[in-house]
């Protein structure tokens, strides 16, 4: 069995990263030119890594499946990015951001990684401002901040409701500059369908050109996956339609460990599901909870219009249960509370699956114009989708799948157990433990790409002189044949059901059995149901057209096939983790008041899964989490 070495530097917490940087092996400029780096993904993590490494002198090949790197899913992030700048002079510090993130993650992340993240958060803002990111400003010209869930300070930087867009366009601009300079070769409309491992090292990928269907082989000295999260496993999520697990799933099947797949985040403020035609769920930024108040009627099945329900008959349940944080309680807690009140029959809107987010008081305080200035575009979006005006009646919101904390296992260098394979951004499991705080994903993606991997890469590459591989090796041959075989199998089914329909079925099952609340029973049910649906998929799926042309049905079917396999691993992980922590809530493990009951004696560890072959059970490998500097307290957002 593999021993997992997280490679955490020794020494005091605040000195670890500094010490690492001062002693890390470097590759000199002349030698950087001799190395080729593959970066899969052009979101915040991928674009920032590709641009920075090219700037340092490496030759970079960057891949994305969209028609332009600027369209990666990161573009859709709304609310903001955290940084411990303490510009507001409200008591923020690196330590506080570190502690909030660790606590928000229910003490299931590595101290050293999270501390490093908090440290470099400050450089990110400097970097982005230098790129021309138009962050919101005060009248005096200073950078503005807002508060986000799980924090008592204002440390979130934002660009209206389009922070992800502006940060990604900043990284995209840098990437474009490097493409122009010839140091990055950008491959758009290109989907990685397998990882090539040579002598135990990740040395290349197999790619399908989505426009022509052509399969190509790409060799390099190192491969970086920055391919985002897998929320779309649940079919309906706030993620872009194209988000999928294929890249990391292929790497898993080639030997990379998959860590904590059951840590999924369900966002409390999304527009509720309207019907079974729905293709995605739309997030209403968490920043709305700064000024909106969440409530449901006190009475069950109250059918009155919200404006007819008097103040004393409303239950502002977050303010009631968590007075210290109120409407800004962390996401997992807010989502679960919404589920509880709906389970009690107090939900509102169609099917009773919704709660109110009310701006009445905010409008009284700030005026309609004030609210419009802060959230105008979100209100517009809400009206466009639901046909309701949220200035006049409260929004209806409900939790939805949003983010996945789990991902490929990486050490402190962001390298997986497969040497040469780096994993960045949402695709790795590293920093958010069992729950991610708002505005921390953008921070992590950019930290990984701009400031971490450019320092850690030298440690590996400095050992790789003379280890060049070429694409005519048997490993490339075999990987390409495997990809072709899988594609042909899908094309040969010739069924009549679209992969989307199977995907929806899989997603609904997972949402019910392994969503906001999980039990041994529900997980065992899911584990018997998934293989049945999968079998039907492989017998009935319809993929018209050929493999050697632009074929979106084939792309979708390949991704859904991988989701089926991941779904099983996720349920298995959830079953094995017999405790409740962060986004993983097992109904058997809760305190009398319904709060999550962690079990630090047994589960204060990372669960990393190793693939054992088709039809075989994966092996569980544990990495203990050693808390040297903080004491993992029970999360308390009440006081």
């Amino acid at each position, binding site marked *: 069995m593999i021993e997992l070495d997280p490679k955490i530097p020794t020494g005091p917490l605040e000195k670890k990263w500094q010490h690492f940087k001062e002693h890390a092996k470097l590759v000199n400029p002349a030698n950087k030119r001799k190395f080729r780096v593959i970066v899969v993904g052009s979101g915040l993590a991928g674009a920032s890594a590709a641009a920075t490494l090219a700037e340092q002198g490496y030759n970079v090949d960057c891949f994305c499946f969209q028609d*332009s790197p600027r369209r990666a899913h990161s573009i859709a992030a709304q609310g903001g990015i955290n940084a411990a700048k303490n510009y507001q002079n409200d008591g923020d510090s690196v330590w506080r951001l570190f502690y909030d993130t660790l606590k928000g993650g229910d003490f299931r992340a590595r101290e050293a990684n999270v501390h490093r993240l908090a440290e470099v958060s400050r450089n990110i803002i*400097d*970097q982005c401002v230098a*790129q021309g990111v138009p962050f919101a400003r005060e009248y005096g010209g200073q950078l503005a901040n807002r508060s986000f869930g799980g924090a008592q300070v204002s440390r979130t930087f934002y660009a209206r409701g389009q922070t992800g867009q502006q940060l990604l366009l900043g990284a995209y601009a840098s990437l474009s500059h490097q493409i122009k300079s010839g140091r990055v070769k950008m491959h*758009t409309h290109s989907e990685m369908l397998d990882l090539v491992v040579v002598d135990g090292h990740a040395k290349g990928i197999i790619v399908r050109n989505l426009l022509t269907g052509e399969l190509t082989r790409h060799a390099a000295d190192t491969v970086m996956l920055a391919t985002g999260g897998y929320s779309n496993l649940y079919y309906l999520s706030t993620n*872009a339609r*194209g988000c999928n697990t294929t890249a990391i799933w292929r790497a898993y099947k080639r030997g990379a460990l998959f860590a904590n797949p059951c840590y999924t985040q369900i966002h409390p403020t999304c527009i509720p599901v309207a019907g079974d035609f729905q293709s995605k769920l739309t997030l209403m930024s968490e920043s709305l909870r700064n000024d909106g108040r969440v409530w449901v009627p006190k009475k069950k099945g109250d059918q009155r219009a919200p404006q007819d329900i008097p103040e004393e008959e409303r239950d502002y349940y977050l303010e009631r249960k968590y007075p210290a944080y109120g409407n800004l309680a962390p996401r997992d807690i807010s989502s679960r509370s919404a589920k509880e009140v709906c389970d009690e029959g107090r939900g509102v809107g169609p099917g009773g699956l919704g709660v109110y987010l009310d701006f009445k008081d905010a409008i009284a305080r700030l005026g309609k114009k004030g609210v419009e200035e802060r959230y105008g575009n979100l209100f517009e979006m809400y009206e466009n989708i639901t046909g309701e005006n949220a200035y006049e009646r409260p929004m209806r919101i409900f939790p939805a799948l949003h983010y996945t904390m789990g991902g490929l296992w990486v050490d402190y260098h962001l390298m997986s157990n497969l040497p040469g394979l780096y994993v960045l951004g949402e695709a790795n499991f590293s920093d958010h433990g069992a729950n991610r705080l708002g505005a921390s994903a953008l921070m992590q993606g950019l930290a990984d790409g701009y400031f971490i991997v450019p320092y850690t890469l030298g440690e590996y590459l400095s050992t790789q002189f003379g280890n060049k591989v070429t694409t005519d090796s048997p490993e490339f041959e075999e990987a390409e044949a495997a990809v072709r075989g899988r594609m042909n199998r899908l094309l040969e089914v010739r069924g*009549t059901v679209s992969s989307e329909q199977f995907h929806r079925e899989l997603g609904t099952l997972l949402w019910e059995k392994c969503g906001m609340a999980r039990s041994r029973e529900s997980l065992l049910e899911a584990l018997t149901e998934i293989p049945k649906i999968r079998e039907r998929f492989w017998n009935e799926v319809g993929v018209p057209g050929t493999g050697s042309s632009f074929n979106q049905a084939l792309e979708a079917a390949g991704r859904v096939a991988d989701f089926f396999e991941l779904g099983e691993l996720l349920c298995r992980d959830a079953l094995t983790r017999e405790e409740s922590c962060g986004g993983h809530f097992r109904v058997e493990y809760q305190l009398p008041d319904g709060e999550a009951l962690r079990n630090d004696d047994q589960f204060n560890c990372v669960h990393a899964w190793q693939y054992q072959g088709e039809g075989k059970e994966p092996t569980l490998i544990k990495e203990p989490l050693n808390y040297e500097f903080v004491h993992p307290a029970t999360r308390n957002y009440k006081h």
Partner: protein
Amino acid sequence: MNFHLRIWRQDHEKVKGFFEEIEAVNIPADASFLEMLDMVNNRLIEKQKVPVAFESDCREGICGTCSMVINGIPQGPGRGAACQVYMRSFCDGETITVEPYRAASFPIIKDLVTNRKAYDRIVQAGGFISEHTGGAPDASATLIGKHEADRAMDAAACIGCGACAAACPNSSAMLFVGAKVTHLALLPQGQPERKERALNMVRAMDEEGFGNCSNYYACEAVCPANISASVIATLNREYVAAACRSVAE
């Protein structure tokens, strides 16, 4: 609701395309336009027919992936991108025509999908600030007035969808280019390369075969990101100032 669709079908750039007539039946009013197309495609798959190719990703109006012309309007009726169009805004039984962008610089890939890489190449020509990762001064070192920051953000909101050039009788990309030039020209960080940026982006735009602006304002009318045509005036000013300066030098 039921709709009669006239959808452009074209296998690839080299063959001739045609309008196919497809009935979209039993469509919920709350479905989005793209969800309606999903339903149409699922039914085509049931009949083992090739589904209609169209691209989308975020389905929230921000990524700029979905590009199509609905009833003659690039990105469809109403404010926002094509993915933000809802079926309730059409009449029951209505005939709806759906076709790809028509602009020589956006060649057709398949059905409703066009190649918009020309916009990426224009950005590569100069739509950036040449900074170095790690070398930036503290973000609070330079103050930027709220008014300037807001105006920069207005221009930076462009989603790169290409509707501006698709709507323009001259296939001009000046709204897109003007938005980027304006965004960076308004910020102190954008000053050092201000001149080259305008010159290089305009040159790239010409090389890609986009036409000139003759003030139709069709771009502004369709732009899903509300980019104001005033950015075109800014672009002209920036370009002329830069060109004069380079002649003088």
